[in-house]
């Protein structure tokens, strides 16, 4: 039972991160019908931006001889998180504006190939030797970095399950962000416009919706969520390197497909279901197959219910 609960906690902790990243895939797919291959790398850039910002604002180790006060820690942690979200939002804007927008009228395959290109540019560009040395090292190079502890880690034990305040904070922040997004998508004028563009971009344009601006903001929003996910993940699993976005990105994509790509609640449910599935399967069987689990789930979903849990079936018209 304890083992079961432990897997539940771990699964939820990973699952909420998949869910946050999956939201970016699903929103972009909704408005552009494009799998933004580079989204996993935006998530990676989010973690690195957090790392640099932590260096800039001078996050001191909370374990040091002179531990910073709670207020100071809180302010710095939020600065780092919000800053990383802004940086990734900008990155999302740049990617959309210069790589995808010129190709919007072209065949979808063209955009897909460009997306793969952008993804590899970020991954391998970040692996180059640093060109700028101070105040931050950019690009960071191939060796893994250790993400600083933004807040002090306090191990907890509930019903024999070991977890930490990181898991709890991460989960709460992720849920808050998702509720916020839910509000934006379903309760604001921007959200209404976004859903209209997703429904039919041409008609939405005719109704006076600024389609380009909506698409740009969708990218910005998705990328900011990915940055938050990157930081939540990096705080509890502090090893970051330029390639870690690739596999996490693909898994988050699987989560989006599982939930029904294009559906916002679907991405949240899909992410959590995938996180739990991975944790339970790897936990009770052979953990060396962990990375293959997500792909197996993807293939099963596409074969059995291609529209996903929340998706609607569409009939192709000619």
């Amino acid at each position, binding site marked *: 039972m304890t083992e079961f609960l432990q897997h539940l906690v771990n699964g939820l902790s990973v699952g909420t991160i998949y869910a946050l990243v999956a939201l970016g895939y699903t929103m972009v797919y909704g408005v552009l*019908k494009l799998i933004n291959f580079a989204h996993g790398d935006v998530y990676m850039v989010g973690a690195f931006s957090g790392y640099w910002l932590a260096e800039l604002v001078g996050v001191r180790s909370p374990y040091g001889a002179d531990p910073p006060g709670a207020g100071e820690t809180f302010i710095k942690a939020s600065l780092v998180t919000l800053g990383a979200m802004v940086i990734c939002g900008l990155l999302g804007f740049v990617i959309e504006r210069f790589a995808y927008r010129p190709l919007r009228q072209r*065949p*979808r*395959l063209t955009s*897909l190939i*460009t997306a793969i*290109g952008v993804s590899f540019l970020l991954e391998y560009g970040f692996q180059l030797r640093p060109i700028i040395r101070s105040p931050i090292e950019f690009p960071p190079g191939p060796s893994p970095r250790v993400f600083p502890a933004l807040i002090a880690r306090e191990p907890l034990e509930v019903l024999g399950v070991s977890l930490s305040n990181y898991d709890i904070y991460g989960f709460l922040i992720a849920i808050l962000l998702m509720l916020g997004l839910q509000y934006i998508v379903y309760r604001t004028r921007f959200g209404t416009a976004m859903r209209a563009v997703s429904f039919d971009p041409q008609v939405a344009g005719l109704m006076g919706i600024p389609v380009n601006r909506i698409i740009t903001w969708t990218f910005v929003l998705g990328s900011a969520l990915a940055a938050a996910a990157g930081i939540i993940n990096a705080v509890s699993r502090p090893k970051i390197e330029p390639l870690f976005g*690739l596999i996490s990105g693909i898994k988050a994509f699987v989560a989006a497909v599982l939930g029904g790509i294009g559906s916002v609640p679907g991405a949240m449910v899909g992410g959590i279901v995938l996180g739990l599935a991975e944790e339970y399967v790897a936990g009770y069987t052979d953990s060396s197959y962990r990375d293959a689990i997500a792909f197996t789930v993807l293939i099963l979903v596409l074969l059995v219910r291609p529209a996903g849990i929340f998706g609607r079936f569409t009939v192709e018209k000619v």
Partner: protein
Amino acid sequence: MSSARAVFRSVLPFLVGAPILALLQPVMPADYAIILVSVGVNVVLATSLNVVNGFTGQFSLGHAGFMAVGAYTAAKITVGLSGVQLILLPEAVSNQLVFAIALLAAMITAAIAGVLVGMPSLRLRGDYLAIVTLGFGEIIRSVIENMKFLGQATGLSGLPARTNLVWVGMSAIATVVMARRLAVSTQGRALFAIREDEVAAEAMGVDTTGFKVRAFVISAAYAGLAGALISHAILLATPRMFTFIRSIEVVVMVVLGGLGSITGSVISAIVLTISLEALREFQAYRMVVYAALLIALMLLRPQGLFGTRELWDLPLFRRLTRNRLAAAGPAGASPAEVRDDSTGPKGVA
């Protein structure tokens, strides 16, 4: 074109190529030879991937997985039979015969893997197919990494050095001839029809899934061949040789040359391999260059360098061959652009 002539024209490249390569083999310095081997292997890979991505218009990202299947099959056979000498044959001939069997087995197992992957996934379209093939490629790799029999993550080492210029050259020629013959056959027409408009092709009675699976299997078999060749050139087969990145490299070659152009695939495989070899000291920039190349190409010339045109569509070649079939070839008749398979809204639906 009579069938005897067709056979002759298919066999001719082998007859010309084999003696030249056999003469070249002993005089070629080892470090140039290995570059030529990787050029040849990349020609096989790019041309075979072009059958799926170019001819059929499906987007596969799992080529490296099939390479792995071929490489491990061949390695198991050559290592297992390394002490065996066939009766009545000198050792060299016996070794080459064993390698030939290994190559054939590599193609067959890779083709079987192609059927297993293709049957379920080819019902999907466009970007979904791309992700699923990527997933299958990673699953193949993950399975290999977990099998004791295949040496897990360290892979198989101590493979006999069997790959030489003749094998590689013959394989490259075989792949190009196969692709060329396929393109002018009724089978090839069906593939082009699927690329141009899948729904229309289906309405015209083309068994779209069946043809897609066939194209996929052919492509997988040649990828297996390439995997077997490269592993017996560097005497090693490890899972790290067959990652997703390897698949992307091949995709870049095909896209750069032009989806659907055999000439394009061959030329871009040669040019990219040699130029990256020449820039070996900038190894770190290799993938950055690939990525930038992909983006720039999509923005500036999405149809690739050759589009869907071929060398033999040039007026000069047509006059030389006076081959009407080739002149009206399918590649020349199709629009030089990547087709949209969008399922999104198209104005009035």
